[in-house]
């Protein structure tokens, strides 16, 4: 276990963390700011990936496809908001869960009907298709660096938007006391619609950006959704800063656990049981972490102010 290997694995962990943040950002925005449990965030992420693949097939240009996919996802998100979500803001969480779960089933099936069940792919855009040498024998695709950069950019954008603009202020105020904001003459419904549309676009953006390294298939959003929820629960619901730091933490814990659990266990037990126990422990780690956080700090590591 050389130092070089550890450093590379730490980088891998941070990279995975940023990837998780990209997915969790939209979720924490909608969940935290609007107090709305949107299980459909995962399928919106999937839809983003599928739309990007579809538009890429038409235009053969990743960036045009990305823009078109974002626009289409926004339209679709607003449509969903109009048809379904709008009627659920005042209902309790259980009803929101059931309704958005229905959307998951519907969209997974719809995607399969339109594009088929076979996994699809999206190539890495030409200008980012190179790679850099991370350690002897291992290349690191530049696209992954682009994903990291876009994750950081989204983080910064959200920080500025939510924390330092007038719309952001209204959104925060609406989250704390929607009625009061409404009484002050702000159209809170329209505000929520904007936030929701933006959240959908974030999910679609994550899907389109990650599509070149992952398989685009029905149900691809479901696994991701669970991880995204773990991130926002650990980070503190509604806290953008919390989501960012928690995503990095989870990325690190998961990656380092997977990389070194067996090696560490080998120090204290024979190799064969270590091989069996190691992966089991590694895949549990993030959930154990979540349980610990919930026990000691029920509102997350970095709870949003005013909650």
């Amino acid at each position: 276990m050389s130092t070089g290997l550890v450093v590379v694995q730490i980088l891998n962990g941070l990279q995975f963390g940023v990837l998780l943040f990209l997915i969790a950002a939209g979720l924490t925005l909608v969940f935290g700011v609007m107090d709305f449990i949107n299980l459909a965030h995962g399928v919106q992420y999937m839809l983003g990936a599928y739309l990007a693949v579809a538009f890429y097939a038409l235009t053969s240009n990743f960036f045009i496809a990305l823009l078109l996919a974002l626009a289409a996802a926004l339209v679709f998100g607003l449509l969903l908001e109009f048809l379904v979500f709008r009627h659920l803001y005042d209902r309790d969480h259980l009803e929101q869960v059931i309704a958005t779960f229905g959307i998951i089933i519907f969209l997974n099936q719809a995607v399969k009907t339109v594009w088929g069940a076979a996994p699809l792919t999206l190539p890495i855009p030409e200008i980012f298709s190179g790679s850099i040498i991370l350690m002897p024998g291992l290349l690191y695709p530049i696209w992954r660096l682009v994903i990291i950069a876009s994750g950081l950019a989204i983080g910064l954008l959200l920080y500025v938007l939510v924390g330092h603009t007038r719309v952001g202020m209204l959104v925060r105020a609406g989250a704390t006391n929607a009625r009061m904001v409404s009484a002050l003459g702000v159209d809170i419904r329209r505000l929520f619609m904007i936030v929701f549309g933006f959240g959908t676009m974030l999910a679609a953006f994550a899907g389109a950006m990650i599509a070149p390294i992952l398989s685009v298939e029905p149900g691809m959003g479901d696994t991701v959704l669970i991880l995204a929820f773990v991130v926002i629960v650990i980070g503190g619901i509604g806290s953008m800063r919390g989501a960012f730091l928690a995503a990095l933490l989870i990325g690190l814990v998961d990656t380092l656990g997977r990389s070194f659990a067996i090696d560490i266990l080998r120090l204290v037990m024979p190799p064969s049981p270590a091989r069996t126990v190691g992966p089991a422990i590694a895949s549990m780690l993030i959930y154990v972490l979540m349980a610990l956080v919930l026990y000691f700090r029920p509102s997350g590591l970095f709870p949003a102010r005013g909650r």
Partner: protein
Amino acid sequence: MHKKLALIGAIMGLSATAAGAQDKVKVGVIATLSGPPAVLGQQLRNGFQLAVKNLGGKVGGREVEVVVEDDELKPDVAVNKAKALVDRTKVDFVVGPIFSNMLIAIMKPVTDAGVILISPNAGTSNFAGKECNPNFFVTSYQNDQNHEVMGKYAQDAAMKKVFLMAPNYQAGKDAIAGFKRYFKGEIADEVYVPLGQLDYSAELTKIAAASPDGIFVFLPGGMGVNFVKQFRQAGLADKIKFLSAFTVDESTLPAQKEAALGFFGGANWAPNLDNPQNKKFVAEYEKEYNAVPATYAFQAYDAALLIDGALKLTKGNTSDKDALRAALMKANFTSLRGPFKFNTNHYPIQDFYQVKVAQRADGKFETQIDKKVFAGYSDPYAKDCPMK
């Protein structure tokens, strides 16, 4: 009262005789048709239906009715659907499923009712050995065999050091065990990842650090797509030989494309297997479903031919089960894979190949036969099967 009963009895008697030779043969197809692995189930269903269509909608001269059910990859659902097929639809045959855990679930409800179960994919070791069943036939393989093909290949190619990776569940462990049965060189490392893992950078770093001659992976479906793309992107594909089972096939190649070029798999068939019946099948399948068939489709096609061949021998009779089983055992059909016969445990004795991913002239990707690794190969569990 008595008259009434007698009347009912007479009507029932009438319908019982009518159910003799003229009735339709009913076949229930159970496959996973929803969720991420749906594409495998669709291949199975399509392969079976193509065969039925080619047989003119008849098996052994009798009209056939095919009822397709989705097991949703949930054992309880699979059991309910299987029971419904047996009890309510009164099927003569059940063909399916894709996944081994579904097979274990539906085995008892189907075979205990005296219905013939034909698996066109899953072939677990327990049903090949001690728990072999007279009503159960397999047109695919015993699960370990595709992994053994790769182990034998690595051994024959004198690879010194191989890195192994599989999902952390029973089939993953069986895969690694199957590979190691024939490969005696050094194992660089043996890594088990959680089912459905997305990002493999940690594992790729480990692989690069170990710098083996080859890797052997069993990562079915979307996992395989993710890993193959990332393996290629990490620049490892040019240095390390990629051996696999159920990781690069026609169900995943549409998404892996160039990333999988030159990668190896172990299989009992490939779309370019050179015999006239297979050429015809592949062309027809592609025309009908606009996709290159994978093993799931061909094995289901063979399952339909198996039923047809057996009913030809029994002259359409499905009620004499002993005669039906004996007829099935004769494997009275020309398999798409060429030579085919059943072992005593009702699993096939067949050839196995190392297959290699290539791009065809029309731009589509498929696996192609690279080398025959085993000829007339039977599974090692057959000796534990009490059936003779």
